[in-house]
């Protein structure tokens, strides 16, 4: 806008509105492909238990520093895929919801107490819980949607949640940040206890 006499340019707003109102394009014969990706992408963020546990993985990785900060995000999706693989095959895994809730409790406790176990033990703990998270995602693939895009969607969403945890974990550089992280870990652990209570009830 130049001076008082000039008029406001509405074109960007109109363009944005048109973009937001656009309906999905069905440009390919294989309908339902994009829906599979979106379903997969939304699956991990649709449950608070998944969200908190995944963010806690990132927070813990950031607390532990290198090499855990990159080892956990690289290994987690691959191990989670083993759980998803079992879920897609229909192989039952007992206590999936309990395992997911317990992951939030234990990972939250690790962050709250700033535990520094050996790297192999930390990786094994995270990998153990990754199987439960993957199994839950694998069994809930809606029929008629692309397995590849659904899978890629939930793997990407999980990775992004790790990234959020790692980004928040950068607060660890400052003393007050370290206290805040430990508080966040305690909150995750308490929320996990609620989920665990519900899973066992």
């Amino acid at each position, binding site marked *: 806008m130049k001076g008082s006499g000039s008029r406001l340019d509405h074109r960007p707003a109109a363009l944005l509105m048109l973009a937001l109102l656009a309906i999905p394009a069905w440009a390919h014969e294989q309908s339902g492909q994009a829906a599979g990706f979106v379903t997969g992408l939304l699956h991990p963020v649709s449950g608070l238990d998944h969200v908190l546990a995944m963010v806690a993985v990132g927070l813990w990785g950031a607390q532990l520093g290198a090499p855990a900060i990159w080892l956990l995000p*690289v290994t987690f999706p*691959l191990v*989670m895929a083993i759980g998803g693989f079992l879920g897609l095959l229909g192989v039952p895994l007992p206590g999936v919801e309990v395992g997911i809730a317990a992951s939030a409790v234990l990972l939250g406790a690790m962050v709250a107490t700033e535990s520094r176990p050996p790297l192999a033990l930390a990786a094994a703990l995270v990998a153990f819980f990754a199987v439960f998270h993957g199994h839950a995602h694998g069994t809930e693939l809606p029929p008629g949607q692309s397995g590849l895009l659904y899978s890629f969607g939930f793997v990407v969403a999980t990775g992004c949640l790790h990234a959020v945890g790692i980004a928040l974990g950068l607060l660890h550089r400052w003393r007050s940040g370290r206290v805040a992280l430990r508080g966040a870990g305690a909150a995750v652990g308490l929320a996990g206890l609620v989920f665990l209570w519900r899973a066992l009830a």
Partner: protein
Amino acid sequence: MRRRFAALAGAGLALTSGAAQAHLVNTGIGPVYDGIAHLLVSFEDVLPVIAMALLAGLNGPPAGRQVLLVLPLAWLVGGVAGTLSSAAPWPTGPATVSLLVLGALVAADFKLSPAALTVLALAVGLAHGWHNGVAMTVAGLPTAGLLGTAGAVFVVTALFAATVVALRRPWTRIATRVAGSWIGASGLLLLGWTLGSRA
């Protein structure tokens, strides 16, 4: 004055414009564009190409150049062989193996010898190209589409391999490995989906 001239020039151009050739069938290269579009909208084809490019990039510029040459050519040769084959298409087969193997190699930042990388690019290109050729024959599509697909494979490989080669900061290399982990995980899940008869 300038505005009036621009308006006149615009009007002149509009009045003297020729007929539009909006339908690619007139140009004869429509199937080539179909081939390009096929790769870009087929996740089971484009994701292995990206994974191969990431692996090539992690192995350095000479490896990137090598894969840039071998992968599209192998794709084209495999495609032509597929059009001559009478086998039934197996949609998830090549993608499952490629994603699993390439994703794991990228995640592990595995250093491959030039010969091994060439063999890998050759295998990926031949397998995916062959499947494309078989599927095109079954669908009754012109084989010229293979040229477009191979061209798109070249462009995608060049873009991703060059990007990875140019990465300098340590965390960017780790981000590439995380992407490999996601790709490998998707391959394993695709295998589960296929074996679980949901395909």
